[in-house]
């Protein structure tokens, strides 16, 4: 073990806005092992995409380190960064805006090859054969090679986005909600394709989604984000069997099938969402948390390892003690 491909340390991204600083990503820390998948879940606007884009340095992080194969990518100059981009790619959420409407399938997939001179000295025919190979890998029929994106459906477009990423021969791919814009029937196909590619090429994924069922199927480790911060981090099995943070519990209860004879209803998230603009110095989930107490206003809870490999950021959960359990009674009573 210990073959860490990516390590993120204290990553922050603040956006200026007229009303103050948007804390889109606020001190995120994790690492991914080679060949594994890290699932990132959280509701819309919690900073998942911003995190993914900072890691690829598509936008400049405000603070922190992103260490890919031992090198801090935030410190690379333009040339080094261009070199590194071959190893790190991204698959986008919206298959309708992620492909240039003016380019054909051939142009879209060959662009990274030609632009980065990945096949130095290759003839047009050789590059085209490579494109056909990639199209075959992602399951796009050869006859679509001259099609424009608007002639294709969402699933095919997403496959082309995947082929474009694969054209660079990457080691690590950020999948930013790659199926959430697709029909349910097509979602499974794309997920299976991604899984197959991972196995065949030894890819490492950071898999962003707001759908816990998808992430369960896919991930080794999962981080749960809330307003720019990690509130819980654990291997997939642990997180699903023993969710600790109140937010994770609420998310999970929304997808779990009610147990036979069980009395556990899904937990409704109530209350207003704390604004990501200059958030107050308290637990960011406090406004919606059923378990909140005075302690929760005493600053932002740190992410602690409460049991092996299981990290939680909550004032009421510490290694060896879980105050929430005691409160369970009066929560359901009240």
């Amino acid at each position, binding site marked *: 073990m210990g073959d860490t491909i990516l390590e993120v340390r204290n990553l922050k991204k603040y956006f200026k806005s007229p009303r103050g600083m948007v804390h889109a990503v606020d001190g995120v820390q994790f690492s991914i092992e080679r060949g594994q998948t890290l699932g990132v879940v959280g509701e819309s606007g919690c900073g998942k995409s911003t995190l993914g884009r900072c890691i690829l340095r598509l936008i400049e992080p405000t603070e922190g380190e992103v260490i890919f194969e031992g090198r801090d990518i935030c410190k690379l100059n333009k040339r080094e960064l261009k070199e590194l981009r071959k190893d790190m790619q*991204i698959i986008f959420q919206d298959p309708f805006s992620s492909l*240039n409407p*003016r380019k054909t399938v051939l142009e879209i997939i060959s662009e990274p090859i030609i632009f980065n001179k990945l096949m130095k000295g290759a003839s047009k025919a050789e590059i085209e*054969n490579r494109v056909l190979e990639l199209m075959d890998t992602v399951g796009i029929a050869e006859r679509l090679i001259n099609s424009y994106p*608007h002639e294709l459906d969402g699933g095919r477009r997403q496959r082309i986005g995947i082929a474009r990423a694969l054209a660079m021969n990457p080691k690590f791919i950020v999948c930013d909600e790659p199926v959430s814009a697709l029909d349910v029937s097509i979602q499974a196909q794309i997920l299976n394709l991604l899984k197959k590619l991972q196995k065949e090429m030894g890819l490492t994924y950071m898999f962003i989604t707001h759908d816990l069922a998808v992430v369960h199927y896919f991930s080794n480790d999962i981080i749960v984000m809330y307003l720019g911060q990690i509130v819980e981090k654990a291997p997939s099995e642990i997180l699903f069997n023993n969710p600790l943070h109140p937010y994770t519990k609420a998310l999970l209860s929304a997808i779990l099938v009610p147990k036979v004879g069980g009395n556990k209803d899904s937990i409704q998230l109530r209350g207003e969402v704390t604004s990501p603009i200059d958030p107050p110095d308290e637990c960011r989930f406090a406004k919606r948390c059923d378990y909140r107490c005075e302690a929760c206003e005493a600053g932002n809870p740190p992410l602690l390892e409460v049991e092996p490999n299981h990290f939680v950021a909550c004032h009421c959960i510490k290694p060896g003690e879980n105050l929430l359990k005691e409160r369970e009674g009066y929560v359901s009573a009240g």
Partner: protein
Amino acid sequence: MTAVTQKQGQSATLASRRYKKKSGFVESWNRLKTNPGAMFGLIVLIIMVLLMIYSFLFITKDDVMAINSGNRFKPPSAQHPFGTDSMGRDLFKRTIYGTRYSLTVGFFSVAFGFIVGVFFGTIAGYFGGWVEEIIMRVSDVMASIPGMLLGMVIVAVLGPSFLNLLIAIGISNISGFVRMARASVLSVKGSEFVEAARAIGMSEIRIAFSQVLPNSISPLIVTATARIATSVLAAAGLSFIGFGVPVPLPEWGALISDGRNYLSLAPHLTLFPGIFIMLVTFACSLLGDGLRDALDPKLKQ
């Protein structure tokens, strides 16, 4: 290497040759064809261009400049379809000869404004920040000066000549394109394919011009067509008040200016050049409207 040759052997021709490519141009053209107004405009413009070519081939400068005092103010006839002017010159030939001024001004002043304006507008829209601030302020200042006034000032400084007229109108065309290009680029630059290009290592300037601009170009082409109409009018206007093409040359505005003195005696002197100006501007406007619909990507299924 062997795998490649093998594959080539299987498919004797390149796959990209075997499957037809639907061209966006053809699709737009097919839509444009169904628009009668746009087709009328296009035909009028084609006729104008043909007339211009004809004038280059068959009408000499002497033909339109030579004074014939025995032949003044003739009304339209078989021999002189548009009649003759105060110097006895054939107005038909002069008007046809004048197409070259209006069409060149229309085309080149817009092309100039387009290239300069779209370049700066794209930079402003894509890069934002202080670059945008500076470009937009300069463009605002240029836009706040009325085109005619700007033209008069430039011609006054550089002297009246056809080239200076062209430069003057070209400059007054810049700011419109800066603003259009910026707005259009802003609407495209947030697309994920821009980030995809960044992710494969493309430089920002390359992304701006090779990925974003081609997707912002449709509204600019529409603007350009409409601008040709206003530029033709501006050229005629400046010539009319003596700031354009020097007088004896048969620019349409200058022809009207000359004819104005004999409005009741020989109304045809203003009528025919007036009709030509109207036809060209009207045709451009119709074509512009048609292009707006034909190039609209939302109509693509």
